[in-house]
Every structure is written in C-alpha cells, then in structure tokens.
C-alpha cells in the first residue's frame, strides 16, 4: 500500500510527529511505501533546519531527512503555514529580505492544493494531530 501522512503537530511539544515517524517505519517494515509526508499547521516545525535537540534525544528533523534519503519519501511543507512561523527556504528568505534559510531541501515548500492532490494519488492519507 502507498501511504501519505499529514503531520499537524510540532516536534517535541506533541506526540503527533513521533507517532507519524513510528508509523512510517512500521509501514515500511511491513513492505508498504510512504510516498509523501505533508506538514501543515504546527507540523511545519518538523522542517526547522536549525533544530538542535540534545544528543541523547531523537532528532526528528534528521529522521525525516533520513526517510527521504532511504525511501525516497517526498517531504512537503505548506508554504503559508511555514512562512507565518518563520520557516523560509533560500528563495523565500531572499524574497522577504531575510538572511539565511530556516528550511532546506529535502523539505520543499508547496501549496495546500498539493495536500488535496496527495489525498488522491496515494491509497491512504493518515493524519497525525496533537
């Protein structure tokens, strides 16, 4: 089965992101695919490039990147939700006159239309909310 995940909870402050990651790993272990993860609402903080948790805690941002690297999972972030929370890729940072990018590939900024789209192109879309 080809799954898509919608993550609405920020990392560390809620369980939603942890659960989404564990679901992804479990699904893959059972031979399923996780095609896309879409981050919306406070879930966009999962893409924070500057996240630097203590070394003895799970690094959620790196774990998502690893999922992309090993499984080819596409990591999409709602651009409107990201911008108002301070998550800008290089292009948006330049457009808004800011130095540095707080969001880097493989996370990609995209529109909400993409969320509706992945609901149709994947067999299941599972929401993880706080």
């Amino acid at each position, binding site marked *: 089965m080809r799954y898509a995940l919608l993550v609405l909870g920020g990392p560390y402050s809620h369980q939603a992101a942890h659960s989404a990651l564990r679901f992804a790993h479990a699904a893959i272990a059972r031979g399923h695919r996780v095609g896309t993860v879409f981050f919306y609402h406070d879930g966009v903080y999962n893409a924070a490039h500057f996240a630097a948790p203590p070394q003895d805690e799970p690094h959620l941002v790196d774990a998502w990147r690893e999922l992309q690297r090993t499984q080819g999972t596409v990591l999409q972030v709602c651009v409107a939700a990201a911008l108002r929370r301070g998550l800008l890729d290089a292009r948006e940072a330049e457009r808004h006159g800011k130095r540095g990018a707080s969001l880097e590939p493989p996370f990609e900024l995209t529109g909400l239309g993409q969320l*509706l789209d992945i609901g149709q192109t994947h067999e299941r879309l599972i929401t993880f909310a706080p």
Partner: protein
Amino acid sequence: MSEITEASHGDLLVMLRHAPHGGLWLREALDLALVGAAFGQSVSLLLMGDGVWALLQGQGSGPLGQKGSQSTFEMLEMYDIERLYVDVDSLAARGLTRDDLLLPVIEVSTPELSTVLAGHRQIFNF
C-alpha cells in the same frame, strides 16, 4: 424530518473542532476548505465540539490583532461551500441553538455523523 440522507454529500469534508481564536486551527482548516473549493471540489464543513463557537455571530477581529472568523465564513457562499453541518449535541452542551449562528446550518445528530462522514470521499480533521 432529518436532512441527512445516505446519498453522497461531496468530495471533501473539513471538520472544525477547535474554538476560533485560541490558535490557528480554524483559520488553517478554512484555508484548506477554500483551496479545495477553488480547485473545483464540492466541499462541506462539519463543526463539532468547541468548533461550534466559530459560527457564533459577531466574531470580528479581536484585541490580539487576529482576523475574525465571521468574514471568512461569510465568504464561503462565494466559493460554493454551502453545506455546513453542525453537531446538535455540541451546540446543546454549550447552551447554543441554531438561532445563535451566523449562517444557516444542517443539524446532525450523533447517530447521523457516520452517514455524513461516509458520504465524503476525503476527510480532514482539524
């Protein structure tokens, strides 16, 4: 007579379960509904729990500088989002009736909720 039938209700159902001003839940849920409608999908809203507060009349902008929800709700009709389902038990539990609400709604009893959910192809729960 109940307005809820077994027939298909639409493509997209957005469930609103949070009160309007304490966070971005309502605003970002409505954004998704508007995008769905702009993409030509038939969109319904279901207000449950504290989400029913969002339809209370007079939700203007507040002291925190947030946009009020009233203006967005008034825009729904322009996007052809006309089906607003409201869980009657959530209304009653908060001492509200449909007369307190900004827009005409379809009242749904708890046993009818599953029919509404089953009638939509895609559901997002905020």
